[in-house]
Each structure stands twice: as C-alpha cells, then as structure tokens.
C-alpha cells in the first residue's frame, strides 16, 4: 500500500503550500470586542479552509475566537461569512503570502 493512501492531516496539507509569511504585517485582523459582543454563530471557524480561526480555550481570552494569519490561503471566506464586520480583511503585501505552483 502506498503511503498516499493514508489521509493527510490539514497541517500536512498546508505544509505542501508555499507561503511566504510577512512577519511585520498581519493582513487580516479580527476585532475581539465585536466577536465578544455580537457573535453567536462563529461562521469564520466553519468557513475557513485552513483552520485559521479556532475557539478560544481558557478564560483569559479577549474574545470567543482566536485567529492566526500564518496559514491563510487568501480565499476571503472569513470576510464574506462574518455577519458583524469583525474581520478586517486585506490582501498581503506584494510578494508575500501564498504562492501556488500547481493549482
């Protein structure tokens, strides 16, 4: 049986995609105040294909959801599904972010 028959985890899948991270600029930011005050559906958690949005664990968190832009595939799903305008969405700066080679 070839190794490809074993399903890859999302982390392993994301490792295949070339991403040049801009460590000085988060192209997407969420507003935890808005999330905390308004959100009950957490659509970003379900819509993101790269699992960049996760439910907060622990009580010290600023809001119900935490976000990390590093694995972002720049698809814009989170911007579109957020009904509260909590996602401040921009594209990464020129030359940064995903670099697809086979898609």
């Amino acid at each position, binding site marked *: 049986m*070839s190794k*490809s*028959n074993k*399903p*890859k985890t*999302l982390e392993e*899948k*994301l490792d*295949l*995609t070339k991403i*040049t991270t801009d460590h000085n600029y988060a192209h997407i930011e969420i507003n935890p105040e808005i999330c905390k005050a308004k959100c009950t*559906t957490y*659509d970003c*958690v*379900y*819509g*993101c*294909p*790269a*699992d960049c949005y996760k439910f907060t664990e622990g009580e010290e968190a600023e809001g119900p959801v935490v976000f990390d832009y590093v694995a972002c*595939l*720049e*698809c*814009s*799903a989170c*911007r*579109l*599904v957020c009904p509260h305008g909590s996602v401040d*969405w*921009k*594209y*990464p*700066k*020129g*030359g940064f*972010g*995903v*670099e*697809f*080679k*086979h*898609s």
Partner: protein
Amino acid sequence: MSEEFDFDVAIVGAGPAGISAALILAKAGIETVVLERGQYSGAKNVSGAALYGPILNELIPNYWEDENSFERYLTTKKITLLSESKSVTIDADLRNFNQVPYNGVTVIRPKFDRWLADKAEEAGAMILPDTMVEDLVWNDKQIIGVKSGDEVLKANLVIIAEGANSMLVEKAKLAKKPKPRHYALGMKETYKLPKKKIEERFHLDDNEGMSNEIIGYSKGIPGGGFYYTNQDTVSFGLILNMAVLTKKKLKAPEVFEEFKEHSYIKKLLKDAEMIEYSAHTIPKGGFKHMPKLYGNGVLVVGDAAGMVLNAGLYIEGINFALESGKVAGEAAIEILQTNNYTKKQTKIYKKKLKESFAYKDLKTFKRASHFLDNRMMFTYVPDLLTGLFEKLLRNNGYPRKRIVTSAIGYVFKKGNLFGLLKLLIGAVRSL
C-alpha cells in the same frame, strides 16, 4: 497619453482577464501596465481548471503549437451522482473533440497564466509582479490611477481584474460587500499521478483528457466536486455554498475530507500523491449579482465582475475572464480615442460586452444559480437515482416487473413527489 499620466491603461491583476485586456491593448500600441500582487502571474490563482480552445485560439492563434500553453484536450466528460455507498455516472466519450483548436483544454493556472502573461509582455505590455494595489486614486468623482504602498501610478483608464473578492470594486463604489449566499468556497488538491496511469485509468490516448463533475455526498451542502486530468497531475476539489456550510456548523476542511471517504473518490485518487492544497472563493451569484461593470475612469472584468457561470453542466470562469478582458481591451481602445473617460464613454464596454457570448450565457442561465442551490439536488436526487438503479438491477429470484412499472413504483415509494415536481419545473425554467 497626456503628460500627467504614467500610462494609458493600468490593469490590476495579471490573471486571464487582465492579461487578455493587456494583450489587446499592447498589440494596438497602447501604453499598458499590469500590476500583479503575486510573485508571478497565476501565483494566487485557483481553478478547476479548463477553458475553451476556440476562445484561447482567438487570443493566441495556434496556441496548441506551444506545449506550455495547456495540459490535455478534453475528450471525456463525466457527471457523477454520489449517494451514501453508491454512484451513478454519465460518461460522455467525445473523441471528435480531438481536433484543433480543441473544444476544451485543461490548464495549470500558475503555468498557464504565466505563459499568457509572457505573450502580453512580448506584445509590449509592462507587467509588474509583487505589486499590491491597495487603493484607487481619485480626482473628484473620477478614478485616475492606483496606489501601491506609497507609490502612485496615474492612468487614463483603470481596469479592475482583481479576481473574486475584489476589494477595489467596492472601493470604486461599483458594488457593496457581497453576501455569502452569492459566493461559494472552493478547496482544491493537486495530485501527482504518472501520465501512463492517468491514461490507463480513464481510457485516454496520449494528451486526451477527462473532466468529472461530482454531485452529492457533501453533507447536503449545495456545491459539488470536480476532477480534471493534467499531463501528470490531477486537479481535484470540492465547491461548497458558504451560507449553508456555516449554517450547518460544519468545518469546510472536514467536509472536504469526508467527501474523499467515498469509494468513488478513493478510486479516482488511488496511488496519487498530493502535492498542493489551495482554496479560493467563487462568485456564483451569476447575472443578477454582478457589480456595475464601468464607472468614471474604470472598467471591471473577469471574476471581479462576477462573470462566473454555474449552470450544472457548465461551470465557467476562465472563458468569461478571457472574453470580458478582450472586450474591455477593445472598448478601451475606443474610449482612449475619445479622450473622455467618464461613464458616458466607459459604458462602451458594457455595450460591447452585451454582444459577447459571455454576457449572453450569463443572461440565459440567470436563474440557474438559484435553482442549483436547491438542496434536493445534493441528497434526494443522488439517493433516488442510485437507489433506482439498484432496484432495477438487483436479482433476487422473484419474477421481474416491467421496468417502467418498477421505476414509477420506486419513485412513488421514495416520496416527496411535490418536491421532485418543483425541482423538475425549476430545471425546465432555469437550465
């Protein structure tokens, strides 16, 4: 070009729409710049991907003579319905599509887009990669250029070819932020599979290609899978209606993984090694949800213009991107001659576009997108059809009934006849 402008035309986005416009303009000797946020043309782009040979041939005559232009010419189209453990496939083997300029060809976007961009560069267009256009430059109510970081680039005319999720279309006040129900999320995996294996698996001769649209087994979420053969890779993915996905509280990557658990998909991907994962949103609202296509000093083309057709049998974006880019290029030549860049003149683009197959197709299928969101299509219909075949083909030692009697009996037993009737009427009205 007047003294104060850097270029006649500035195009944002070096995908098929932007490059197609650039190619037409550069060939006419117009000073054109294309600004691309990716490391190269196609670096940010995700597609199935297939396009029409005749459209590409119009833009680049005899494109097939250059082996970098495409992967395989499509001779087989399959449409598959999946239910829990079964599938039914329609397999259209159309070998007469093997003649140039080919009916359809598969492409790998980073490769194809770059190839197309090279053609525009050869024609004299300037392409600037690594350049993110963040904003537009205005003079009162007129767009007169683009901004990237601190740099300002002035142009008589700006063409927005930014793709799906165009921030500039919103900044140009040509559309509001789209609703999730008018967008779909596409996730894609590219797999390495030896050329010989691809050809054996799908009964293809050298360079012939197969595409497969796959409906059902997506947790009842409207959308569908796709599978396209390239030279020695295959493109596989799943498209999901975002509004339904989030409403069902299902995580997109998990729905994708479970889709791959179906035995039909497992066979498609057997022995194939994943080499890339990508995702993109797709404007699927169709004709009724396109932004304004022109404004003062600006035209909109391709996905940014919402020019994507979803009509089940036809799912198209690149063709419309190429066509709308070409029409915008031709319109821009006329607009530049008038030296007037207000809406009064830029509307030439829409007038011309209305004559194109792209606009006409979108109009013909204006009801299709809504119809294809009918959830019965994604669970009830695949269940009904696969179950019907099972019933008709099962041998159990009892005398058979007539096929028609058996089929009608089965459909009645499955129930929801009213829903089915509504679905059929919807299909007649929209497809």
